């Protein structure tokens, strides 16, 4: 089928190194000695563990519950015993630990009851829930939960669904082999995505260095009579980047600021995601294994189907690494990273393990100064200016790096690859990005602290004002009361000697009697204290133990005994029979 293809700017052509591992069929990796399953394997919330050490789990049993909408469940890759739920190193450039479930396989590989779902009959929300519960995430690299991407964007019609089989990174052949051997199920998965998203077109992009995969996919599409177009795209790194593949296949350029390509009416899924989503829907199988390329400095490079959680060292041994192997590279040579030790487990997004040695990856010569040749800008697939971003990252002038759109950088490594001064540009950009994020976090924390501090101050002021107002009111009331009492007393006393004709002075007296005899302020204060004491007394008397009404005589006797002992030991004052004397200090 003829189709007009577009081009993205830049890109590089590193030696592909794919032939070593793509001539043998996918093999099943043997059961490892133990499995370390990290709970955080996708973008979004960290799933909560729902098993404990000592629990027996079945293959496919859920061990981590999805935390929020953008999160996916985690499952036991085989049947066995949970040894511990603890901190273990996870494949991440930091080499730091995170919460993992360690499972010792029992060798039976016994499945839990699987519940397939008919995606055509079920409501889309139920299908999304099923995919989330099966832990289906994007297998291309970022690990975004698939159900999140399948939810149609509001108000934007879906034009194209793109299936990414480009696999542009050197050395990696897992998607190639998956398409060659399991094309039927991949196409079923694509058809399901099509049913959910209702796009106008479905395009399957495969780099033209994989003719067998293209042929297999075309055959599968024809066999299922689906109107999908399988398109051979020119081999050029990074054609497998989502935005690059969209550009090549549709000519649409996704603006850098746009987080989701769904807002452009395009959605991209990896072929592996389509396959595992189909297994989840049609067979009820959660994502517990994946296809993985083991290559590099080894005797027998090959693709294996491996359980999630298998320690990488055990896998590498299958391919018989040469003795000079000094590390394991996870991912491809352009974007991958060296894992901290061979115990690191395989996760859902691990697509390739490369045995590292100095012959394949010669140590880099020292970094030289930037000569502003502009090679990096010519190869940047996002049309950025890496040399400018480099200067500002190096000078820690992060505001400027953002002006040069550092967050559009996909860290593909083209710039570092071509740099004649061998500057590790991507490392500078990663450093700048993580610094900017850290500052953002600090700024938010500071803002929050400021609002909380200001609110506390406001609240203290308000409480003080309230208290003062209350006291003033009480004092005024007391003063008025005293004045009235004094007036009454004066009236009585004056009424006795002057029975008649002396009413006028008696009426006038209340006005000046209190002022003359007592200091009203002192009087008010004393009255307030007295009132407070009376209130406290009343409160004390009102308090009754709540649990003593329905006691049996035995219990009452026991309680009385205990009370007697406590009194004897001077632990408490003897319970007063009469109300407490009023001389107790007010509360």
């Amino acid at each position: 089928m003829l189709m007009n293809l577009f081009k993205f700017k830049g890109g590089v052509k590193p030696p592909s190194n794919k032939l070593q591992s793509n001539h043998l069929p996918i093999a099943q990796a043997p059961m490892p000695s133990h499995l370390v399953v990290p709970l955080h394997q996708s973008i979004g919330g960290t799933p909560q563990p729902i098993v404990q050490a000592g629990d027996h789990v079945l293959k496919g049993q859920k061990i981590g519950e999805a935390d929020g909408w953008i999160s996916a469940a985690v499952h036991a890759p085989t049947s066995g015993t949970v040894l511990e739920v603890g901190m273990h190193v996870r494949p991440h450039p930091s080499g730091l630990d995170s919460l993992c479930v360690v499972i010792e396989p029992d060798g039976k590989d016994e499945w839990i009851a699987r519940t397939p779902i008919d995606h055509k009959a079920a409501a889309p929300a139920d299908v999304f829930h099923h995919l989330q519960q099966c832990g289906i995430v994007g297998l291309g690299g970022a690990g975004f939960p698939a159900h999140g991407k399948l939810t149609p964007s509001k108000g934007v019609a879906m034009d194209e669904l793109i299936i990414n089989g480009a696999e542009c990174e050197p050395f990696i052949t897992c998607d190639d082999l998956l398409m060659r051997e399991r094309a039927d199920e991949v196409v079923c998965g694509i058809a399901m995505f099509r049913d959910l998203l209702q796009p106008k077109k479905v395009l399957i992009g495969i780099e033209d260095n994989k003719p067998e995969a293209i042929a297999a996919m075309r055959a599968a599409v024809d066999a299922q009579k689906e109107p999908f177009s399988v398109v051979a795209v020119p081999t050029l790194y990074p054609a497998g980047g989502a935005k690059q593949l969209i550009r090549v296949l549709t000519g649409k350029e996704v603006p850098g600021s746009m987080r989701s390509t769904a807002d452009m009416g395009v959605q991209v899924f990896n072929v592996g995601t389509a396959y595992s989503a189909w297994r989840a829907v049609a067979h009820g199988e959660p994502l517990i294994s994946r296809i993985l390329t083991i290559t590099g400095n080894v005797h027998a490079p090959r693709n294996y189907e491996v359980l999630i959680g298998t320690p990488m060292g055990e896998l590498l041994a299958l391919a018989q690494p040469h003795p000079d192997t000094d590390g394991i590279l996870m991912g491809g040579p352009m974007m991958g990273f060296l894992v901290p030790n061979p115990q690191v487990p395989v996760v859902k997004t691990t697509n390739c393990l490369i045995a590292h040695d100095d012959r394949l990856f010669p140590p880099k010569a020292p970094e030289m100064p930037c000569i502003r040749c502009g090679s990096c800008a010519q190869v940047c697939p996002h049309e950025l200016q890496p040399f400018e971003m480099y200067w500002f990252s190096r000078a820690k002038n992060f505001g400027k790096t953002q002006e040069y759109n550092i967050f559009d950088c996909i860290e593909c490594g083209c710039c570092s690859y071509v740099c004649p001064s061998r500057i590790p540009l991507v490392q500078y950009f990663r450093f700048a990005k993580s610094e900017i994020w850290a500052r953002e976090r600090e700024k938010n924390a500071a803002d929050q602290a400021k609002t909380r501090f200001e609110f506390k101050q406001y609240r203290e002021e308000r409480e003080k004002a309230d208290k003062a107002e209350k006291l003033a009111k009480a004092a005024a009331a007391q003063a008025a009361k005293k004045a009235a009492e004094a007036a009454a007393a004066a009236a009585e006393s004056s009424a006795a000697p002057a029975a008649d004709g002396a009413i006028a002075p008696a009426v006038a007296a209340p006005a000046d009697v209190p002022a003359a005899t007592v200091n009203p302020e002192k009087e008010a204060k004393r009255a307030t204290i007295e009132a407070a004491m009376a209130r406290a007394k009343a409160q004390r008397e009102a308090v009754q133990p709540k649990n003593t009404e329905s006691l049996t005589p035995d219990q009452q006797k026991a309680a009385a005994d205990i009370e007697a002992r406590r009194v004897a030991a001077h632990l408490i004052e003897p319970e007063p029979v009469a109300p407490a004397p009023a001389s107790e200090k007010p509360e």
Partner: protein
Amino acid sequence: MDILLAIAIMALGAIVLGAALGFAAIKFKVEGDPLVEKIEAILPQTQCGQCGFPGCKPYAEAIVNGEEINKCPPGGAEGVQRLADLLGREVKPLDAEEKPKQIAIIDENTCIGCTLCIQACPVDAIVGAAKQMHTIIAQQCTGCELCLPPCPVECIHMAVIPETIDNWKWKYPVVEITAAPLQKAA
């Protein structure tokens, strides 16, 4: 005659412009000192009082009035640098030891529920009630250490925030070249 006209024109101009300026002074009056706000945005808002002022805003006001810019330990050397850039003053070494970011932790077995730390916390990051165990909301804690002195049973300690995958940062790729120690000639 001409001179009178000239004076009249100048006087008229002065009246009109004076009225415009007077109007602008009332209409576009700036509330507060914008410089204080800019300084406050740089200060870390821990409200710890380690600068000797009761909070970040009073210190920001004091800086405007000529106070030194190197008295904020939580802001660190970087904070001093940013203040110096803003105010055009000279960078000075921090007046105290720079500490890694910490949070307070209450030993809940020892806490007697006296509420003194709750009253001391400037950002209301401690929850609890009289005679009930207290605890610190880690996300809200600014690490100001103001809750340490009032505690009668010393059950609060500071702990450095550990590095996790969520707050891990890529390292600066530039390796500083330091002079090798000179080897003494034998």
